[in-house]
């Protein structure tokens, strides 16, 4: 076997895709070729190295956000007309009839074809007349209202087309449909909305309410396990929310987990180093008390005791450092 072929097969073999016979030939070649043996070592080393860029599991917030956005987009799509659905159904049935005897297929085709051609013409005429009647009725009717009586908001205009040689214009637009959901704090749908509100709400009050509720649940130990996503939502709020009282609430909610969850500890350390509000930095020091012996905590406290702009915070950090023996 030539080395060029062997080197290609080394890669295929490293990924478990070399046929047995070719694998045996490769092994024989490698037994007598140190160059290719080195090549194999390097391919295996590359495989190990590539593991240093791991595939991250998408966070629950990301999936929930994406799903909600997709749902809105699907809701905004126009629904298909009945003859389009019928055509699709016939296409589906035709696909499954591919396995049946030829005569049955032909009969179905003939019958469906005749029905489609004849029926479609009638349906299109009727649909055209119905659409014209509905347009006339709509002109005389007010805008559709929500259950509270307010008119439905328009999200955006997607196209404007003027009919040639006419004063008629077609405007396509998407509507916002306000919705409401009631439920207990244990309800997964409510929790998901709270997590979204903590990131997406324009109003500081709404973000504050959602973070406050999630923080209260976490302090009470209700459904705040690692996988539930609420801890992640609080960490995101602590790191990114523009409002200090929202960040403060998030920090309070994370307090019970600073000992058991390294990610929470890192998020609090980051707040201690980078948050612009001295109250939050001070609260972070207090929260870190149970883990003040941790090496990374001590490193951050040491840095803060020297570099923080607030003298009180520098003082408190020094006091905490002095209160715990150096080595654990």
């Amino acid at each position, binding site marked *: 076997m030539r080395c060029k072929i062997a080197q290609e097969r080394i890669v295929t073999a490293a990924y478990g895709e070399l046929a047995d016979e070719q694998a045996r030939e490769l092994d024989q070649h490698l037994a007598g070729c140190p160059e290719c043996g080195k090549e194999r070592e390097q391919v295996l080393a590359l495989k190990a190295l590539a593991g240093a860029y791991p*595939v991250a599991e*998408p966070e629950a917030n990301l999936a929930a956000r994406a799903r909600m956005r997709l749902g809105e987009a*699907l809701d905004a799509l126009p629904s298909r007309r009945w003859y389009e659905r019928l055509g699709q159904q016939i296409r589906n049935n035709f696909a499954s009839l591919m396995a049946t005897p030829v005569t049955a297929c032909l009969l179905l085709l003939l019958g469906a074809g005749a029905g489609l051609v004849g029926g479609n013409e009638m349906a299109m005429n009727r649909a055209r007349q119905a659409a014209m009647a509905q347009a006339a009725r709509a002109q005389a009717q007010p805008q559709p209202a929500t259950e509270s009586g307010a008119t439905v908001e328009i999200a955006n205009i997607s196209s404007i087309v003027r009919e040639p040689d006419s004063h008629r214009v077609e405007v396509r637009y998407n509507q916002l449909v306000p919705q409401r959901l009631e439920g207990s704090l244990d309800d997964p749908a409510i929790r998901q909305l709270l997590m979204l509100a903590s990131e997406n709400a324009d109003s500081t009050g709404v973000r504050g309410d959602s973070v406050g509720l999630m923080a209260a649940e976490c302090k009470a130990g209700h459904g705040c396990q690692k996988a539930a996503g609420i801890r992640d939502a609080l960490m995101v709020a602590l790191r990114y929310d523009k409002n200090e009282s929202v960040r403060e609430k998030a920090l309070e909610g994370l307090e019970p987990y600073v000992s058991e969850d390294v*990610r929470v500890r890192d998020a609090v350390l980051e707040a201690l180093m980078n948050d612009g509000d001295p109250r939050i930095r001070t609260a972070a020091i207090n929260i870190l008390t149970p883990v003040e012996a941790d090496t990374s905590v001590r490193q951050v406290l040491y840095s803060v005791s020297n570099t923080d702009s607030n003298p009180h915070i520098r003082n408190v950090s020094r006091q905490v450092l002095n209160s715990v023996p150096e080595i654990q």
Partner: protein
Amino acid sequence: MNEQKSAEERMQARAPEMELIREAQAGSRAAFDTLVRQYEQQVLRLALHLTGSEHDAEDIYQEAFLKAFRHLGNFRFECSFYTWIYRIVTNLCLDQMRRRKTRREDRSVLVDYFGGEIDLLASVSDDRSFSNPAKELDRKLLGERIHAALEKLTPRERMVFELKHYQGLRLRVIGEMLNTTEETAKNTLFRATKKLRTQLAGLRS
């Protein structure tokens, strides 16, 4: 005989999903939503690892499932729905990677939805009660080097390497997804590994 039996077994295993797809094709939104939930984690995982951005991953998710919804009528069960949806996602990711190369964007760290850096290795957690900051930094730097080397591959090489090394797909399936042959996928993988080795020469795991 064995091949036929395993093909039959695969068909039987896919029967409930086929029913779901048929319902979605007939217009059932609930059925389509169920399909989305079955595949959304895999779609996001792939898009996130390839683009390095939560924002871009979310855009790709949106485009992929909207495309799937619009063109579901064209799905003829000639392959699994998994292959079909992955084909849509890989093409969208390839387009995105080509656009980035044209704009010469160079992203060597991942960014989250708000533009902050994601420390990937933070999710590969060290469960001991204290951490070793120097070792963590080494791993982070190594991860960034790997990511930078991957960015230097052509979009197609990057895609094949991603699907083979990180997603664990068979070369035959990769060929199907990228509308090419198994042989071409194999050659692309070989070129990708060769280039990566040149980029990463001197590094140790």
